[in-house]
């Protein structure tokens, strides 16, 4: 199978190039996947960046500056960051709506994500879509669309292309506890397992799908047990523990890279905010929320890092200040930009090749 790439205004997939304000996407890691001190700090940094970025988005939302809804992954930082950190250069990411940290890990910039949320001219979709709904072929990030599960078949297609070209890249994708019921998720698992596609599916079990608790979504004990139905490995991890998520994903990634087929990693955590900023989550019992609050993934990892002497209070203070000021600058700059011009709306339904 040849490797010619179709025309595109952007360059063809170039894999894993890093950019953005959060430092390197994947710091040097030992071959067996164990993490150096710099990795631990990078994980921490991405988690804090995700939280700070999303807090800013919420603030902008309450100021009426966000176009549409504001979704956050508060409580999901360990899952988003730990999973994406298990990828290597050239791998593909298909994140969902609670995975802002994964975008950052794979090198997306705060500026670009700010422009997406604010629907400004020059955003990755030129204002045609918002939040994380973009595709960046340079970074190999294929953002979600609203329809839950709809990108899984596309992830299979990328995995198929990887396999046909005998490349060694992995496709990592995500789905929520609720979204895990969507037909395309199961179709994709059927296809990926039968074809041994290099796919990792992270199921983000955060106890709720909008207002519906998991007790009304499924009756299995663990969503990872669904893997058995496809003859693939399934593992459930504590989704508030970034290292647990990382190691489980690393294993699944290694299996995919060896062309031994897909895996499921179920990451169990809590959606600490409402479904989106408009939703105060009155349906979540306060006790349940309080119990999860004690397991906040960032606070938890902080404890680990300070215990190891990797992180100090001063370092933390400096990091938060630095990230905040970067995000603030980015928001201010984006707010200064215009929306795309109205006449732009009709452009681009089809690709029009330059005249021959």
């Amino acid at each position, binding site marked *: *199978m040849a*490797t010619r790439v179709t*025309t595109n205004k952007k360059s063809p997939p170039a894999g894993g190039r890093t950019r953005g304000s959060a430092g390197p996407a994947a710091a040097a890691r030992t071959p067996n996947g164990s993490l150096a001190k710099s990795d631990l700090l990078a994980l921490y940094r991405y988690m804090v960046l995700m939280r700070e970025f999303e807090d800013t988005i919420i603030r902008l939302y309450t100021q009426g500056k966000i176009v549409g809804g504001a979704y956050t992954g508060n409580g999901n930082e360990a899952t988003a960051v730990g999973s994406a950190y298990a990828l290597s250069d050239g791998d593909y990411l298909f994140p969902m709506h609670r995975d802002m940290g994964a975008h950052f890990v794979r090198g997306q910039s705060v500026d670009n994500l700010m422009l997406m949320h604010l629907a400004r001219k020059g955003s990755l*979709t030129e204002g045609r879509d918002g939040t994380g709904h973009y*595709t960046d072929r340079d970074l190999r990030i294929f953002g979600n669309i609203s329809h839950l599960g709809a990108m899984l*078949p596309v992830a*299979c297609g990328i995995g198929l292309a990887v396999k046909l070209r005998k490349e060694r890249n992995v496709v990592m994708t995500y789905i929520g506890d609720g979204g895990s019921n969507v037909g395309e998720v199961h179709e*994709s698992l059927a*296809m990926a397992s039968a074809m041994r596609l290099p796919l990792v599916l992270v199921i983000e079990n955060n106890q709720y799908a909008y207002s519906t608790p998991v007790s009304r979504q499924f009756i299995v004990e663990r969503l990872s047990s669904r893997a058995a139905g496809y003859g693939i490995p399934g593992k459930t991890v504590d989704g508030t523990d970034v290292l647990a998520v990382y190691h489980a994903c690393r294993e699944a990634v290694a299996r995919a890279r060896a062309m031994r087929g897909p895996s499921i990693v179920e990451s169990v955590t809590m959606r600490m905010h409402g479904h989106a900023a408009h939703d105060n989550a009155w349906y979540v019992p306060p006790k349940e929320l309080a119990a999860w609050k004690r397991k906040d993934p960032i606070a938890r990892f902080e404890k680990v890092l300070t215990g190891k002497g990797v992180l100090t209070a001063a370092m933390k203070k400096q990091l938060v200040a630095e990230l905040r000021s970067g995000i603030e600058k980015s928001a201010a700059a984006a707010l200064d930009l215009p929306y795309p011009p109205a006449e732009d709306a009709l452009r681009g339904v*089809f690709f029009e090749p330059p005249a021959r």
Partner: protein
Amino acid sequence: MAMLTYIEAINEGLRDEMRLDPTVFLLGEDIGAYGGAFKATKGLLEEFGADRVIDTVLAEGAIIGAATGSALAGLKPVAEMQFSDFVSNGFNQLVNVTAKYHYRNFIPVPMVVRLPSGGGIRGGPFHSANTEAWFFHTPGLKLVAPSTPYDAKGLIRAAIREPNPVLYFEYKYLYRHIKSEVPDGDYEVPIGAADIKRTGSDITVITYGTGVHWSLEAAETLSREGVEVEVLDLRTLMPFDRKAVLSSVEKTGKVLIVHEANLTGGVGAELSAFIGAEAFRHLDAPVRRLASPDTPVPYAPPLEDAFLPNAQKTAEALRSLAAY
């Protein structure tokens, strides 16, 4: 030149493009060793191997999504729906993922979905559908519907070379019912170009797919009655050839639109509105439509025969229009 059936022409078109372009590959249910439910991909596994003629799991959403994903990765997939009817299972992929991809991301999606369409084969309500109207209404998809072996081969080649998603509607009834001369060499039928299959001065029939054959037969009948009918074969439904439609309407002043898909909200409705808006002063009669009635496709032979348009019904509609 070779005499080919309609389905042989599709098969040749696929083979020629696969020989020319190593990024072209096929995926679908039972398309490999079995050669496809209708044998459209017969012999291709043997020539190109299992990496380019891929038997998939039975999951249309995954098939269409995998086509989309591999197209985004720079390959040129041609996905087969075993029957056009089953594209409903991949509907979300097509209308929400595939169709919106370029508009949202400025990345071309060069893929083809082949849809064996239509009735007349006693297939009943779930193996006879004409589904083009579902997608005609969806911005971001191109739709072609060849009526002859020549067009079938030329359009499959153009569809594969097209950098946008193309739905290729092919007609099961025509697969082995028609045969014609098809050039051996490299040619394509451009997407967006209609074709006058018969010239005439009194009435224009605008049609596509199986409707072309009913219309040509009816036109011969009408000619014996002194009415000269022009048969305009759209070949591409989206984007349809506005210029060709207008110039034929300006010439004849009377229009009958014929399609096998059911009437309401069909392609004919849009054509009719277009002609009414753009060629009103050239019209000598209201635009008429002949289509299947708004029911599912029935199974029993007398029911299906009553349901489908045919040459006789087309001739009747033409007579009535001629007398207007």
